[in-house]
Protein backbone atom coordinates (compact mmCIF):
# COMPACT_ATOMS: atom_id res chain seq x y z
CA UNK A 1 0.00 0.00 0.00
CA UNK A 2 1.54 3.31 -1.01
CA UNK A 3 1.54 6.41 1.19
CA UNK A 4 -0.64 8.14 -1.37
CA UNK A 5 -3.27 9.38 -1.55
CA UNK A 6 -3.28 10.85 1.94
CA UNK A 7 -6.41 12.21 3.64
CA UNK A 8 -5.94 14.88 6.30
CA UNK A 9 -8.26 17.23 8.15
CA UNK A 10 -7.74 20.96 7.59
CA UNK A 11 -8.56 22.52 10.95
CA UNK A 12 -12.34 22.35 11.28
CA UNK A 13 -12.73 23.56 7.70
CA UNK A 14 -12.64 20.32 5.75
CA UNK A 15 -10.53 17.48 4.37
CA UNK A 16 -7.63 17.46 1.98
CA UNK A 17 -6.72 14.54 -0.28
CA UNK A 18 -3.09 14.71 -1.45
CA UNK A 19 -1.97 12.49 -4.31
CA UNK A 20 1.80 12.96 -4.27
CA UNK A 21 4.70 14.56 -2.45
CA UNK A 22 5.72 16.60 -5.49
CA UNK A 23 4.20 18.16 -8.55
CA UNK A 24 3.53 15.73 -11.40
CA UNK A 25 1.10 15.68 -14.31
CA UNK A 26 -0.65 12.46 -13.18
CA UNK A 27 -1.06 13.75 -9.62
CA UNK A 28 -2.54 17.01 -10.90
CA UNK A 29 -4.85 15.06 -13.19
CA UNK A 30 -5.90 12.93 -10.20
CA UNK A 31 -6.68 16.03 -8.13
CA UNK A 32 -8.83 17.50 -10.91
CA UNK A 33 -10.61 14.20 -11.54
CA UNK A 34 -11.35 13.65 -7.84
CA UNK A 35 -12.76 17.15 -7.52
CA UNK A 36 -15.11 16.48 -10.45
CA UNK A 37 -16.14 13.15 -8.90
CA UNK A 38 -16.84 14.74 -5.50
CA UNK A 39 -18.91 17.46 -7.19
CA UNK A 40 -20.85 14.73 -8.98
CA UNK A 41 -21.51 12.91 -5.69
CA UNK A 42 -23.29 16.06 -4.50
CA UNK A 43 -22.72 15.25 -0.83
CA UNK A 44 -24.76 17.80 1.10
CA UNK A 45 -22.02 18.12 3.75
CA UNK A 46 -19.54 19.46 1.18
CA UNK A 47 -20.05 23.20 0.78
CA UNK A 48 -17.35 23.72 -1.82
CA UNK A 49 -14.38 21.99 -3.42
CA UNK A 50 -11.09 23.18 -4.82
CA UNK A 51 -7.79 21.83 -6.08
CA UNK A 52 -4.20 22.87 -5.74
CA UNK A 53 -1.27 21.33 -7.65
CA UNK A 54 -1.58 17.74 -6.39
CA UNK A 55 -4.45 17.83 -3.91
CA UNK A 56 -8.22 18.18 -3.65
CA UNK A 57 -9.95 20.08 -0.84
CA UNK A 58 -13.48 19.41 0.39
CA UNK A 59 -14.91 22.22 2.53
CA UNK A 60 -16.90 20.51 5.29
CA UNK A 61 -17.94 21.94 8.65
CA UNK A 62 -16.17 19.43 10.88
CA UNK A 63 -17.86 20.91 13.94
CA UNK A 64 -21.12 19.54 12.53
CA UNK A 65 -19.95 16.44 10.63
CA UNK A 66 -17.65 13.80 12.14
CA UNK A 67 -14.39 13.69 10.15
CA UNK A 68 -14.39 9.86 10.31
CA UNK A 69 -17.68 9.74 8.48
CA UNK A 70 -16.41 11.89 5.61
CA UNK A 71 -13.11 10.03 5.58
CA UNK A 72 -14.85 6.67 5.12
CA UNK A 73 -16.89 7.98 2.23
CA UNK A 74 -13.82 9.52 0.63
CA UNK A 75 -11.82 6.32 1.02
CA UNK A 76 -14.56 4.38 -0.74
CA UNK A 77 -14.57 6.89 -3.58
CA UNK A 78 -10.77 6.83 -3.81
CA UNK A 79 -10.72 3.05 -4.07
CA UNK A 80 -13.27 3.05 -6.88
CA UNK A 81 -10.72 3.88 -9.60
CA UNK A 82 -7.13 4.66 -10.50
CA UNK A 83 -7.07 8.43 -10.20
CA UNK A 84 -3.66 8.93 -11.79
CA UNK A 85 -5.11 7.36 -14.96
CA UNK A 86 -8.47 9.11 -14.71
CA UNK A 87 -9.61 11.14 -17.70
CA UNK A 88 -9.68 14.89 -17.22
CA UNK A 89 -13.12 16.21 -16.31
CA UNK A 90 -15.46 17.27 -19.15
CA UNK A 91 -16.67 20.82 -19.70
CA UNK A 92 -13.22 22.34 -19.96
CA UNK A 93 -12.20 25.14 -22.31
CA UNK A 94 -9.21 25.62 -24.61
CA UNK A 95 -8.08 29.24 -24.76
CA UNK A 96 -5.81 30.95 -27.26
CA UNK A 97 -4.42 34.09 -25.65
CA UNK A 98 -2.58 36.52 -27.97
CA UNK A 99 0.80 37.34 -26.46
CA UNK A 100 3.57 39.80 -27.19
CA UNK A 101 6.95 38.18 -26.45
CA UNK A 102 9.93 40.28 -25.46
CA UNK A 103 10.35 44.03 -26.13
CA UNK A 104 10.27 46.49 -23.24
CA UNK A 105 6.75 45.23 -22.44
CA UNK A 106 8.09 41.76 -21.53
CA UNK A 107 11.75 42.49 -20.85
CA UNK A 108 12.98 39.13 -19.55
CA UNK A 109 12.35 36.99 -22.62
CA UNK A 110 16.02 36.98 -23.65
CA UNK A 111 17.22 36.30 -20.13
CA UNK A 112 14.79 33.41 -19.67
CA UNK A 113 15.80 31.98 -23.06
CA UNK A 114 19.47 32.14 -22.07
CA UNK A 115 18.80 30.33 -18.77
CA UNK A 116 16.88 27.67 -20.71
CA UNK A 117 19.77 27.41 -23.19
CA UNK A 118 17.77 28.67 -26.19
CA UNK A 119 18.13 31.60 -28.54
CA UNK A 120 15.27 34.11 -28.20
CA UNK A 121 13.57 33.13 -31.47
CA UNK A 122 13.50 29.47 -30.48
CA UNK A 123 12.21 30.41 -27.03
CA UNK A 124 9.34 32.36 -28.61
CA UNK A 125 8.66 29.48 -31.01
CA UNK A 126 8.41 27.02 -28.12
CA UNK A 127 6.36 29.21 -25.80
CA UNK A 128 3.96 30.34 -28.52
CA UNK A 129 3.20 26.77 -29.61
CA UNK A 130 3.14 25.03 -26.24
CA UNK A 131 -0.21 23.90 -24.95
CA UNK A 132 -0.49 24.01 -21.17
CA UNK A 133 -3.16 23.20 -18.61
CA UNK A 134 -4.36 25.24 -15.64
CA UNK A 135 -2.78 23.15 -12.89
CA UNK A 136 -4.18 25.31 -10.12
CA UNK A 137 -5.50 28.79 -9.43
CA UNK A 138 -4.26 30.81 -6.50
CA UNK A 139 -2.06 33.51 -5.01
CA UNK A 140 -4.52 36.07 -6.39
CA UNK A 141 -8.13 35.63 -7.56
CA UNK A 142 -8.29 33.85 -10.90
CA UNK A 143 -4.49 33.60 -11.26
CA UNK A 144 -3.56 30.40 -13.12
CA UNK A 145 -0.46 28.26 -12.68
CA UNK A 146 -0.11 26.44 -15.99
CA UNK A 147 2.02 23.56 -17.15
CA UNK A 148 3.88 21.58 -17.72
CA UNK A 149 6.29 22.96 -20.29
CA UNK A 150 9.07 20.73 -21.60
CA UNK A 151 12.04 19.95 -19.37
CA UNK A 152 13.94 22.72 -21.22
CA UNK A 153 11.87 25.19 -19.21
CA UNK A 154 12.72 23.72 -15.84
CA UNK A 155 14.45 27.00 -15.01
CA UNK A 156 14.67 28.22 -11.42
CA UNK A 157 13.04 31.36 -10.15
CA UNK A 158 15.36 34.39 -10.00
CA UNK A 159 17.21 34.87 -6.73
CA UNK A 160 15.98 38.46 -6.45
CA UNK A 161 12.45 39.62 -7.07
CA UNK A 162 11.35 41.73 -10.01
CA UNK A 163 9.78 44.66 -8.09
CA UNK A 164 6.61 44.63 -10.15
CA UNK A 165 5.24 42.98 -13.27
CA UNK A 166 1.98 44.42 -14.66
CA UNK A 167 -1.41 42.72 -14.68
CA UNK A 168 -1.80 40.18 -17.51
CA UNK A 169 1.97 39.53 -17.63
CA UNK A 170 3.04 36.06 -18.75
CA UNK A 171 5.90 34.76 -16.58
CA UNK A 172 7.85 31.50 -16.55
CA UNK A 173 9.77 29.23 -14.13
CA UNK A 174 9.95 25.55 -13.10
CA UNK A 175 8.16 24.29 -16.26
CA UNK A 176 5.16 26.49 -15.49
CA UNK A 177 3.60 29.71 -16.76
CA UNK A 178 1.51 32.24 -14.83
CA UNK A 179 -0.68 35.07 -16.10
CA UNK A 180 -0.65 37.63 -13.31
CA UNK A 181 -3.98 38.91 -12.03
CA UNK A 182 -2.63 42.07 -10.42
CA UNK A 183 0.62 43.99 -10.57
CA UNK A 184 2.93 42.06 -8.30
CA UNK A 185 6.55 41.46 -7.34
CA UNK A 186 7.75 38.06 -8.52
CA UNK A 187 10.73 35.78 -8.85
CA UNK A 188 9.37 34.41 -12.14
CA UNK A 189 10.70 35.88 -15.41
CA UNK A 190 8.48 38.19 -17.43
CA UNK A 191 8.60 36.76 -20.98
CA UNK A 192 5.28 37.82 -22.49
CA UNK A 193 2.56 40.41 -22.16
CA UNK A 194 -1.11 39.72 -22.79
CA UNK A 195 -4.25 41.84 -22.51
CA UNK A 196 -6.12 38.95 -20.89
CA UNK A 197 -7.62 39.74 -17.51
CA UNK A 198 -7.93 36.66 -15.32
CA UNK A 199 -10.23 38.33 -12.76
CA UNK A 200 -13.04 40.71 -13.68
CA UNK A 201 -14.91 41.39 -10.44
CA UNK A 202 -17.47 43.64 -12.15
CA UNK A 203 -18.34 41.09 -14.86
CA UNK A 204 -21.09 38.47 -14.86
CA UNK A 205 -18.40 35.82 -15.14
CA UNK A 206 -15.74 37.21 -12.82
CA UNK A 207 -13.27 34.38 -13.41
CA UNK A 208 -12.11 33.59 -16.92
CA UNK A 209 -10.36 30.30 -16.23
CA UNK A 210 -11.15 27.11 -14.36
CA UNK A 211 -8.67 24.50 -13.14
CA UNK A 212 -8.17 21.97 -15.95
CA UNK A 213 -8.69 24.50 -18.77
CA UNK A 214 -5.97 24.47 -21.42
CA UNK A 215 -4.22 27.40 -23.07
CA UNK A 216 -1.91 28.41 -25.88
CA UNK A 217 -0.17 31.77 -26.22
CA UNK A 218 0.19 32.61 -29.94
CA UNK A 219 2.67 35.40 -30.69
CA UNK A 220 1.43 38.80 -31.83
CA UNK A 221 3.19 42.03 -32.74
CA UNK A 222 3.40 44.97 -30.41
CA UNK A 223 0.97 47.03 -32.50
CA UNK A 224 -1.64 44.28 -32.17
CA UNK A 225 -1.28 44.16 -28.40
CA UNK A 226 -1.68 47.92 -28.24
CA UNK A 227 -4.79 47.68 -30.37
CA UNK A 228 -6.23 45.04 -28.05
CA UNK A 229 -5.47 47.15 -25.03
CA UNK A 230 -7.13 50.18 -26.61
CA UNK A 231 -10.34 48.69 -27.89
CA UNK A 232 -11.01 45.71 -25.65
CA UNK A 233 -13.03 46.53 -22.57
CA UNK A 234 -14.18 42.99 -21.83
CA UNK A 235 -10.84 41.86 -20.40
CA UNK A 236 -10.81 39.02 -22.93
CA UNK A 237 -7.69 40.48 -24.57
CA UNK A 238 -8.56 38.99 -27.95
CA UNK A 239 -8.55 35.47 -26.56
CA UNK A 240 -10.45 32.84 -28.51
CA UNK A 241 -12.05 29.91 -26.78
CA UNK A 242 -13.20 26.48 -27.83
CA UNK A 243 -14.89 23.73 -25.87
CA UNK A 244 -12.85 20.66 -24.96
CA UNK A 245 -14.71 17.40 -24.81
Amino acid at each position, binding site marked *: MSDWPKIRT*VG*LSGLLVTFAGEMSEPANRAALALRAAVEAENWPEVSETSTSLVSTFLAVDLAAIRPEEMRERLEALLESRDWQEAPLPPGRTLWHVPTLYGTDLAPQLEEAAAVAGLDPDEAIRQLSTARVRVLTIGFAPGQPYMGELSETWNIPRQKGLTPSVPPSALVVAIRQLIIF*TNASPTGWRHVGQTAFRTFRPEAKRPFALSPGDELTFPAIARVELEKLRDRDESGQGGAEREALS
Partner: protein
Amino acid sequence: MSAALTILQAGPSMSVQDLGRPGYRAQGLTRGGAADPVALYEGAALLGQASELAALEMAGSGGTFRAEADLRIALTGAEMAATRDGEALAWNASHSLPAGATLTLGGARNGSYGYLHLGGGIDTEPRMGGRGAHLAGGVGGLLEAGESLPAGRDRDGEVGLTLTPLDRFSGGEVRIVASMQTDSFDSSTLERFTGSPFKRDARANRMGVRLAQEGPGYSTEAALSIVSEVVVPGDIQIAGDGAPYVLMGECQTTGGYPRIGTVLPCELPRVAQALAGASLSFRFVEMAGAVRLQARFAADLAALRGTVTPLLRDPAGMRDLLSYQLIGGAVSATANPFEKET
Protein backbone atom coordinates in the same frame (compact mmCIF):
# COMPACT_ATOMS: atom_id res chain seq x y z
CA MET B 1 -31.06 53.36 -3.40
CA SER B 2 -30.78 56.68 -1.64
CA ALA B 3 -28.00 57.79 0.64
CA ALA B 4 -28.59 57.04 4.31
CA LEU B 5 -25.23 57.82 5.83
CA THR B 6 -22.51 60.13 4.53
CA ILE B 7 -18.93 59.66 5.62
CA LEU B 8 -17.58 63.08 6.59
CA GLN B 9 -14.26 61.81 7.86
CA ALA B 10 -12.94 58.23 7.55
CA GLY B 11 -10.38 56.35 9.61
CA PRO B 12 -7.51 54.66 7.78
CA SER B 13 -9.16 51.31 7.16
CA MET B 14 -12.93 51.47 6.89
CA SER B 15 -14.88 49.02 4.73
CA VAL B 16 -18.29 47.45 4.27
CA GLN B 17 -18.27 43.87 5.60
CA ASP B 18 -20.69 40.99 5.91
CA LEU B 19 -20.26 37.29 6.65
CA GLY B 20 -18.21 36.80 3.50
CA ARG B 21 -18.44 35.41 0.04
CA PRO B 22 -18.13 31.61 0.03
CA GLY B 23 -17.88 29.48 -3.09
CA TYR B 24 -14.90 31.00 -4.94
CA ARG B 25 -12.04 29.13 -3.31
CA ALA B 26 -11.38 27.01 -6.42
CA GLN B 27 -10.84 30.21 -8.34
CA GLY B 28 -8.46 31.77 -5.87
CA LEU B 29 -10.71 33.96 -3.73
CA THR B 30 -11.19 33.24 -0.03
CA ARG B 31 -14.39 33.96 1.81
CA GLY B 32 -13.27 37.22 3.41
CA GLY B 33 -15.95 38.92 5.51
CA ALA B 34 -15.85 40.73 8.83
CA ALA B 35 -12.59 40.30 10.76
CA ASP B 36 -14.74 39.81 13.88
CA PRO B 37 -17.96 38.13 12.72
CA VAL B 38 -19.22 37.97 16.31
CA ALA B 39 -19.71 41.73 16.08
CA LEU B 40 -22.09 41.20 13.15
CA TYR B 41 -24.20 38.80 15.22
CA GLU B 42 -24.24 41.25 18.12
CA GLY B 43 -25.26 44.15 15.89
CA ALA B 44 -28.02 42.05 14.35
CA ALA B 45 -29.28 41.07 17.81
CA LEU B 46 -29.35 44.72 18.92
CA LEU B 47 -31.27 45.84 15.84
CA GLY B 48 -33.51 42.77 15.61
CA GLN B 49 -32.41 41.90 12.10
CA ALA B 50 -30.57 39.24 10.11
CA SER B 51 -26.90 38.58 10.87
CA GLU B 52 -26.18 38.39 7.13
CA LEU B 53 -26.72 42.14 6.69
CA ALA B 54 -23.66 44.24 5.96
CA ALA B 55 -22.14 46.71 8.43
CA LEU B 56 -19.24 49.13 8.52
CA GLU B 57 -15.95 47.73 9.80
CA MET B 58 -13.48 50.23 11.22
CA ALA B 59 -9.91 49.10 11.96
CA GLY B 60 -8.17 51.11 14.66
CA SER B 61 -10.34 54.19 14.56
CA GLY B 62 -13.79 55.32 13.52
CA GLY B 63 -14.80 58.46 11.71
CA THR B 64 -17.47 61.11 11.44
CA PHE B 65 -20.80 60.48 9.78
CA ARG B 66 -23.96 62.40 8.95
CA ALA B 67 -27.37 60.77 8.83
CA GLU B 68 -29.25 61.63 5.63
CA ALA B 69 -32.44 59.97 6.90
CA ASP B 70 -33.82 58.89 10.27
CA LEU B 71 -31.72 55.85 11.10
CA ARG B 72 -31.31 53.25 13.76
CA ILE B 73 -27.71 52.30 14.47
CA ALA B 74 -25.85 49.85 16.64
CA LEU B 75 -22.23 49.97 17.79
CA THR B 76 -20.29 46.75 18.44
CA GLY B 77 -16.80 45.28 18.42
CA ALA B 78 -13.85 47.26 19.78
CA GLU B 79 -15.12 50.17 21.87
CA MET B 80 -14.69 53.67 20.48
CA ALA B 81 -15.67 56.96 22.07
CA ALA B 82 -19.03 57.65 20.42
CA THR B 83 -21.02 60.87 20.30
CA ARG B 84 -24.21 61.94 18.56
CA ASP B 85 -24.21 65.71 18.08
CA GLY B 86 -21.80 65.88 21.01
CA GLU B 87 -23.82 63.65 23.34
CA ALA B 88 -22.02 60.49 24.49
CA LEU B 89 -23.45 57.18 23.27
CA ALA B 90 -23.03 53.79 24.88
CA TRP B 91 -21.12 51.09 22.98
CA ASN B 92 -22.63 47.60 22.51
CA ALA B 93 -25.98 49.32 22.14
CA SER B 94 -28.54 50.53 19.61
CA HIS B 95 -29.46 54.19 19.17
CA SER B 96 -31.50 56.45 16.95
CA LEU B 97 -29.65 58.73 14.56
CA PRO B 98 -32.10 61.31 13.23
CA ALA B 99 -31.66 62.87 9.81
CA GLY B 100 -29.03 65.58 10.00
CA ALA B 101 -27.42 64.25 13.18
CA THR B 102 -23.64 63.82 13.27
CA LEU B 103 -22.11 60.66 14.67
CA THR B 104 -18.47 60.73 15.73
CA LEU B 105 -16.52 57.58 16.56
CA GLY B 106 -13.00 57.85 18.01
CA GLY B 107 -10.05 55.49 18.35
CA ALA B 108 -10.55 51.84 19.27
CA ARG B 109 -9.77 51.35 22.96
CA ASN B 110 -10.00 47.68 23.85
CA GLY B 111 -9.66 45.94 20.49
CA SER B 112 -8.77 46.34 16.84
CA TYR B 113 -12.07 46.42 14.95
CA GLY B 114 -15.18 48.48 15.72
CA TYR B 115 -18.47 48.09 13.85
CA LEU B 116 -21.27 50.49 12.95
CA HIS B 117 -24.54 48.80 11.97
CA LEU B 118 -27.52 50.42 10.27
CA GLY B 119 -31.13 49.36 10.73
CA GLY B 120 -31.90 47.46 7.51
CA GLY B 121 -28.18 46.89 6.92
CA ILE B 122 -25.88 48.64 4.49
CA ASP B 123 -27.56 48.07 1.17
CA THR B 124 -24.81 48.51 -1.40
CA GLU B 125 -25.10 46.52 -4.63
CA PRO B 126 -23.98 42.92 -3.97
CA ARG B 127 -20.98 41.82 -5.99
CA MET B 128 -20.32 38.13 -6.54
CA GLY B 129 -22.86 37.29 -3.89
CA GLY B 130 -21.62 39.59 -1.14
CA ARG B 131 -21.30 43.22 -0.12
CA GLY B 132 -18.04 43.02 1.80
CA ALA B 133 -14.76 44.40 0.52
CA HIS B 134 -12.08 41.76 -0.10
CA LEU B 135 -9.13 44.11 -0.02
CA ALA B 136 -6.44 41.56 -0.83
CA GLY B 137 -8.52 40.08 -3.62
CA GLY B 138 -9.37 43.41 -5.19
CA VAL B 139 -13.13 43.19 -4.68
CA GLY B 140 -14.39 46.55 -3.43
CA GLY B 141 -12.10 48.78 -1.43
CA LEU B 142 -11.65 51.07 1.52
CA LEU B 143 -14.21 53.81 2.09
CA GLU B 144 -13.24 57.45 2.00
CA ALA B 145 -14.63 60.75 3.20
CA GLY B 146 -17.39 62.01 0.93
CA GLU B 147 -18.84 58.60 0.15
CA SER B 148 -22.42 57.79 1.07
CA LEU B 149 -23.89 54.46 2.02
CA PRO B 150 -27.48 53.34 1.38
CA ALA B 151 -29.50 51.50 4.03
CA GLY B 152 -31.91 48.65 3.45
CA ARG B 153 -35.52 48.80 4.55
CA ASP B 154 -35.66 48.89 8.34
CA ARG B 155 -38.55 46.78 9.62
CA ASP B 156 -38.02 47.38 13.30
CA GLY B 157 -38.22 50.52 15.36
CA GLU B 158 -36.70 49.76 18.68
CA VAL B 159 -33.55 51.49 19.96
CA GLY B 160 -31.92 51.97 23.33
CA LEU B 161 -31.03 48.30 23.71
CA THR B 162 -27.77 46.82 24.92
CA LEU B 163 -26.06 43.48 25.40
CA THR B 164 -22.94 42.14 27.04
CA PRO B 165 -20.51 41.26 24.25
CA LEU B 166 -19.00 37.80 24.03
CA ASP B 167 -15.55 37.79 25.65
CA ARG B 168 -12.85 38.30 23.03
CA PHE B 169 -11.09 41.59 23.72
CA SER B 170 -8.39 40.71 26.20
CA GLY B 171 -6.07 38.40 24.25
CA GLY B 172 -5.24 35.38 26.42
CA GLU B 173 -5.45 31.70 25.64
CA VAL B 174 -6.45 30.59 22.16
CA ARG B 175 -7.43 26.98 21.53
CA ILE B 176 -6.03 25.31 18.41
CA VAL B 177 -6.13 21.91 16.70
CA ALA B 178 -3.31 20.10 14.96
CA SER B 179 -2.83 21.14 11.36
CA MET B 180 -1.22 19.83 8.20
CA GLN B 181 2.40 19.99 9.37
CA THR B 182 2.01 19.91 13.18
CA ASP B 183 3.56 16.43 13.30
CA SER B 184 6.65 17.57 11.45
CA PHE B 185 7.69 19.96 14.26
CA ASP B 186 9.71 18.21 16.96
CA SER B 187 8.21 17.93 20.42
CA SER B 188 10.49 20.51 22.04
CA THR B 189 9.48 23.03 19.37
CA LEU B 190 5.80 22.31 20.00
CA GLU B 191 6.33 22.64 23.75
CA ARG B 192 8.01 25.99 23.29
CA PHE B 193 5.18 27.08 21.00
CA THR B 194 2.48 26.32 23.54
CA GLY B 195 4.61 27.00 26.62
CA SER B 196 5.27 30.71 26.31
CA PRO B 197 2.98 33.53 25.27
CA PHE B 198 3.33 35.65 22.14
CA LYS B 199 2.68 39.32 21.67
CA ARG B 200 0.37 40.36 18.90
CA ASP B 201 2.70 42.17 16.50
CA ALA B 202 1.87 45.58 15.03
CA ARG B 203 1.92 43.86 11.63
CA ALA B 204 -1.64 42.66 11.33
CA ASN B 205 -4.45 43.12 8.86
CA ARG B 206 -7.42 41.33 7.37
CA MET B 207 -5.08 38.75 5.76
CA GLY B 208 -3.12 37.74 8.83
CA VAL B 209 -1.78 38.59 12.26
CA ARG B 210 1.93 38.25 13.03
CA LEU B 211 2.97 36.97 16.44
CA ALA B 212 6.17 38.06 18.13
CA GLN B 213 8.21 36.32 20.80
CA GLU B 214 11.66 36.58 22.33
CA GLY B 215 14.03 33.81 21.29
CA PRO B 216 14.69 31.91 18.09
CA GLY B 217 12.11 31.52 15.34
CA TYR B 218 10.22 28.31 14.64
CA SER B 219 11.19 25.88 11.90
CA THR B 220 10.75 22.38 10.55
CA GLU B 221 12.67 20.41 7.93
CA ALA B 222 9.34 19.77 6.21
CA ALA B 223 9.25 23.40 5.10
CA LEU B 224 11.48 22.55 2.15
CA SER B 225 9.28 19.87 0.66
CA ILE B 226 5.73 21.22 0.93
CA VAL B 227 3.88 21.33 -2.36
CA SER B 228 1.63 24.38 -2.27
CA GLU B 229 -1.75 23.28 -0.86
CA VAL B 230 -4.95 24.64 0.64
CA VAL B 231 -4.73 27.10 3.55
CA VAL B 232 -7.70 28.23 5.63
CA PRO B 233 -8.39 31.10 8.03
CA GLY B 234 -7.05 30.19 11.45
CA ASP B 235 -4.01 28.35 10.11
CA ILE B 236 -0.87 29.31 11.99
CA GLN B 237 1.72 29.54 9.27
CA ILE B 238 5.44 29.66 10.01
CA ALA B 239 6.79 32.13 7.47
CA GLY B 240 10.35 32.38 6.23
CA ASP B 241 11.34 34.61 9.15
CA GLY B 242 10.38 31.91 11.67
CA ALA B 243 7.51 33.94 13.11
CA PRO B 244 4.02 32.47 13.31
CA TYR B 245 1.26 34.22 11.38
CA VAL B 246 -2.39 33.49 12.11
CA LEU B 247 -4.19 33.62 8.78
CA MET B 248 -7.42 35.65 8.76
CA GLY B 249 -10.49 35.69 6.51
CA GLU B 250 -8.78 37.46 3.63
CA CYS B 251 -5.82 35.06 3.41
CA GLN B 252 -4.78 33.44 0.16
CA THR B 253 -6.39 30.15 -0.90
CA THR B 254 -3.15 28.16 -1.02
CA GLY B 255 0.29 28.35 0.49
CA GLY B 256 3.55 26.52 0.81
CA TYR B 257 4.64 27.42 4.34
CA PRO B 258 4.35 24.84 7.13
CA ARG B 259 1.43 25.20 9.52
CA ILE B 260 1.99 24.36 13.15
CA GLY B 261 -1.68 24.42 14.13
CA THR B 262 -5.07 25.89 13.30
CA VAL B 263 -7.00 28.31 15.52
CA LEU B 264 -10.59 27.18 16.12
CA PRO B 265 -13.09 29.36 14.22
CA CYS B 266 -14.67 30.34 17.56
CA GLU B 267 -11.31 31.65 18.79
CA LEU B 268 -10.39 33.64 15.69
CA PRO B 269 -12.27 36.80 16.77
CA ARG B 270 -10.03 36.84 19.87
CA VAL B 271 -6.97 36.94 17.63
CA ALA B 272 -8.54 39.55 15.34
CA GLN B 273 -9.45 41.86 18.22
CA ALA B 274 -6.22 41.54 20.24
CA LEU B 275 -4.54 44.93 20.36
CA ALA B 276 -0.94 45.27 19.19
CA GLY B 277 1.19 44.13 22.14
CA ALA B 278 -1.57 42.02 23.71
CA SER B 279 -0.53 38.61 24.99
CA LEU B 280 -1.78 35.52 23.16
CA SER B 281 -0.94 31.91 24.00
CA PHE B 282 -1.92 28.68 22.30
CA ARG B 283 -3.24 25.38 23.62
CA PHE B 284 -3.85 22.27 21.55
CA VAL B 285 -7.19 20.55 21.98
CA GLU B 286 -8.33 17.26 20.48
CA MET B 287 -10.85 17.26 17.65
CA ALA B 288 -13.67 16.17 19.98
CA GLY B 289 -12.92 19.04 22.35
CA ALA B 290 -12.80 21.45 19.44
CA VAL B 291 -16.21 20.28 18.26
CA ARG B 292 -17.65 20.89 21.75
CA LEU B 293 -16.14 24.39 21.95
CA GLN B 294 -17.44 25.21 18.50
CA ALA B 295 -20.93 23.96 19.41
CA ARG B 296 -20.94 26.12 22.54
CA PHE B 297 -19.91 29.11 20.46
CA ALA B 298 -22.74 28.49 17.98
CA ALA B 299 -25.16 28.29 20.93
CA ASP B 300 -23.79 31.55 22.36
CA LEU B 301 -24.32 33.30 19.04
CA ALA B 302 -27.84 31.92 18.76
CA ALA B 303 -28.63 33.06 22.31
CA LEU B 304 -27.46 36.64 21.78
CA ARG B 305 -30.91 37.93 20.83
CA GLY B 306 -32.26 36.72 24.17
CA THR B 307 -29.63 38.66 26.10
CA VAL B 308 -30.58 42.08 24.74
CA THR B 309 -31.86 44.40 27.48
CA PRO B 310 -32.96 48.03 27.64
CA LEU B 311 -30.13 50.48 27.99
CA LEU B 312 -30.21 52.46 31.21
CA ARG B 313 -28.86 55.90 30.65
CA ASP B 314 -25.49 56.63 32.10
CA PRO B 315 -25.69 60.00 33.93
CA ALA B 316 -22.16 60.81 32.78
CA GLY B 317 -23.52 60.95 29.27
CA MET B 318 -26.51 63.19 30.09
CA ARG B 319 -25.61 66.64 28.95
CA ASP B 320 -28.82 68.04 30.40
CA LEU B 321 -28.64 66.17 33.70
CA LEU B 322 -30.23 68.95 35.73
CA SER B 323 -33.40 68.88 33.70
CA TYR B 324 -34.11 65.29 34.74
CA GLN B 325 -36.38 64.56 37.68
CA LEU B 326 -34.00 62.26 39.46
CA ILE B 327 -35.93 62.08 42.71
CA GLY B 328 -39.13 61.00 41.07
CA GLY B 329 -37.53 57.82 39.82
CA ALA B 330 -36.11 56.74 43.14
CA VAL B 331 -38.09 53.92 44.67
CA SER B 332 -35.40 52.34 46.76
CA ALA B 333 -32.51 53.75 48.71
CA THR B 334 -30.40 50.65 48.24
CA ALA B 335 -31.05 49.42 44.72
CA ASN B 336 -28.40 50.31 42.19
CA PRO B 337 -30.29 52.13 39.46
CA PHE B 338 -27.52 51.55 36.95
CA GLU B 339 -27.49 47.81 37.21
CA LYS B 340 -28.76 46.10 34.11
CA GLU B 341 -32.09 44.39 34.25
CA THR B 342 -31.88 40.64 33.99
